[in-house]
């Protein structure tokens, strides 16, 4: 990639902290040619993910959309309202998208402007961690996953302020999954992002508790990379009272986002009672864009039921709150409740996120947002939450 030539890359593991804030949930927009430049045209042709021009059904305007596996993706061309002049505006054409959304070098300036030292990178349009399983074509899934992980891995070559998370295939044998993980780690990735329960979200995939995934847990533990869940991690519609068809777009968004905590509040207990944490005591898990105040619920509910049902007699040897403090991390960005409960949750298990460049992002006023949220918190605790815990989790210090 031309844009990356001459880019600085120290190669060292230690990350320089200049500003004192590290975002554990940001979204990297890949270039519009990220897939076409990496996948064989002869083999995949029009199925390669790419930006195409289509007529908007409502306005008749010519707009850009991503096309994946021949199908036009839902939504706009790039989800980056926080970097637009009008924050309510979602770009309709690629030329409207600011470089600081998808060019790793330009983006560094935005980070400096916002006082952010580095960021953990989750996918952006049109990619969600499970996007390519929808093709039902295992080979195509691998080709897309590889292209994505290669493209995002290149960001770390541009700057070690980026911490990329790899995606994995779901409709392939476990050996192929492991191969992709190792390949991605070789390419600079520092974790994987995956569904909270593949068996629920993808037809033909296996539940989180299934032995199918055990080699993945073992491999991630061995490579010392955390598993990352983002938002509802694929479970939002499964776990909700059915949406009302008469909701306006705004209402729909408030409801579908507002209930997000219902997922980790049920999936972390699933993880805890599955015994995975005891079987892989050095494997870490992080929940991004879920907030953290609800975590107090998970800890006390799991501990309570563990006591009431004598779950140590069922192979759950470690008290759930202890297993949490050993292995699970949660993020905050706006909340007072989680900060009030920080000791209850665990001061060493809390990280900060900016969600750049999404609508909820604290950019470009992350410093003020953090000052407001953490008012009254002692400096040493702030440091842990704002960057030290993250550097430890992602092996950057």
């Amino acid at each position, binding site marked *: 990639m031309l844009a990356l030539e001459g880019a600085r890359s120290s190669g060292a593991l230690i990350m320089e902290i200049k500003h004192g804030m590290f975002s554990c949930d940001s979204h990297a927009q890949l270039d519009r040619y990220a897939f076409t430049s990496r996948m064989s045209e002869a083999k995949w042709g029009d199925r390669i993910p790419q930006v195409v021009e289509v007529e908007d059904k409502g306005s008749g305007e010519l707009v850009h959309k991503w096309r994946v596996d021949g199908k036009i993706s839902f939504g706009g061309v790039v989800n980056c309202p926080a970097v637009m002049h009008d924050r*309510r505006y979602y770009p309709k054409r690629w030329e409207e998208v600011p470089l600081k959304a998808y060019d790793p070098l330009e983006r560094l300036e935005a980070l400096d402007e916002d006082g952010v030292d580095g960021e953990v990178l989750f996918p952006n349009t049109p990619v969600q961690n499970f996007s390519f399983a929808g093709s039902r074509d295992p080979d195509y899934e691998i080709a897309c996953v590889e292209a994505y992980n290669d493209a995002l891995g290149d960001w770390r070559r541009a700057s070690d302020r980026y911490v990329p998370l790899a995606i994995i295939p779901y409709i392939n044998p476990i050996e192929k999954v492991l191969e992709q993980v190792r390949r991605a780690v070789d390419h600079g990735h520092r974790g994987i992002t995956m569904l909270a329960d593949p068996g*629920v979200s993808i037809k033909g995939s296996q*539940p*989180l*508790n299934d032995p199918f995934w055990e080699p993945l847990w073992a491999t991630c533990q061995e490579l010392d990379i955390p598993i990352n869940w983002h938002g509802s991690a694929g*479970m939002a519609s499964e*776990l*909700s*009272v*059915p949406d*009302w*068809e*008469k*909701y306006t777009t*705004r*209402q729909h*968004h*408030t*409801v579908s*986002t*507002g*209930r997000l*905590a*219902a997922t980790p*509040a*049920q*999936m972390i*207990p*699933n993880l805890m*009672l*599955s015994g995975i944490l005891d079987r892989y005591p050095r494997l870490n898990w992080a929940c991004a864009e879920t*907030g*953290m*105040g*609800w975590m*107090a*619920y*998970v*800890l*006390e*509910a799991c501990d*309570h*039921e*563990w006591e*009431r*049902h*004598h*779950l140590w*007699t*069922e192979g*759950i040897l470690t008290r759930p709150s202890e297993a949490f403090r050993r292995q699970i991390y949660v993020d905050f960005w*706006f*909340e*007072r*409740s989680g900060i*009030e*409960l920080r000791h*209850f949750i665990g001061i060493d298990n809390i990280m900060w996120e900016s969600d750049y460049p999404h*609508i*909820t992002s604290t950019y470009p006023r992350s410093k003020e947002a953090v000052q407001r949220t953490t008012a009254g918190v002692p400096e040493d605790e702030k440091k842990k939450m704002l960057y030290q815990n993250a550097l430890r989790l992602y092996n950057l210090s």
Partner: protein
Amino acid sequence: MNLKYGLISVDDHVQETPDVWTSRLSKSKWGDRIPHVESDSNGAERWVVDGKPVDLPGVAIAHAALSDRGCNTGRWDEVPESVYVPAERLKAMDADGVDYSVLYPSVAGTGGEMFGRLADPELELACVQAYNDWLIDEWAAASDRFVPQCIVPISPIEATVAEIRRAVGLGHRGVIYPANPMELREVPHVNEPDYDPVWSTCEELGVPLCIHAGSSTSIQVSAPSAFSPRLAAAFSSITRQASQISVLVHLLISRILLRHPNLKVVFGESSLGWGAYQVEFADQQFNEDGLYLEGYDLKPSEMFRRQCYLTGWYGTAGVQTRGIIGIENILWSTSFPLATSSWPTTRQYVERAFEGVPEDEKNLMLWGNAAKLYKV
């Protein structure tokens, strides 16, 4: 009101006796469709409703009253009397320091959802009325320390309204309503104005609408098949409480609370630990999405504080964050006799949760708010 201990438990369950329905529904009319207990070839007993076995752990919900909470009661003669004999229940309450107990069912669904699944509205109504009559005859009549709450038929709406009026006339003080009636049978979305007469009736009669955790299983992560029965029971208790998150968010955005400013909604067995985050996040998302542009007079947190209640029985996080949840929106309970119940050491749970909390605030959460809400 006569307070000896200083606790009104707003969420406990009665165990229906085998004759609740058989003695009240016409045998000639309904035959074996009447809810009843039958035994299988091994002598294990279970409830059968309209020809289908009821998905209960055994023949009764009695876990907290058993020596091992992980066991189920397979036969009625093993069921402890404290779960189904009012006089024995009063003793259990005295032993645990509980003044008043607000009652939810067991066989009729811990959230009153069981009969909503019946395809025949006439049978649904007959079963619902029998439960409501029984609870007044056997429990409310036994002591004013029991606060009875009615269950309702979910369709047609006229029947719901009529039964609420009838039941409240009999002495019921709350209306148990399933979180997701659409899951039970073909009915309009619960946000539709079709339901307004139900909400209006509760307002008019001054009785809270009570949505109990677990009434909708589709919004809970189901226990993995690899889980042992004990793990599955523990897991389901956790997901049941967390599933109330989605119910609360829908309610806050639905405008039902704006249209019915005097409606009070209790989230039974919700727990408190997620409350502060959820109340705060609802506002955050509401503001971010610009929902104030769509004619809401109040923010979600304001609607919540005016009209909603969460219930705790263990843990400390909810009380610690009472300033965010709202001191007047917190109720306490024992959840007797579910496995998760604090019985018989409720005093210790209360002591732990309320350590350092000023007396006046503690009193509101332990009994004051409940006394006002249920007019005790």
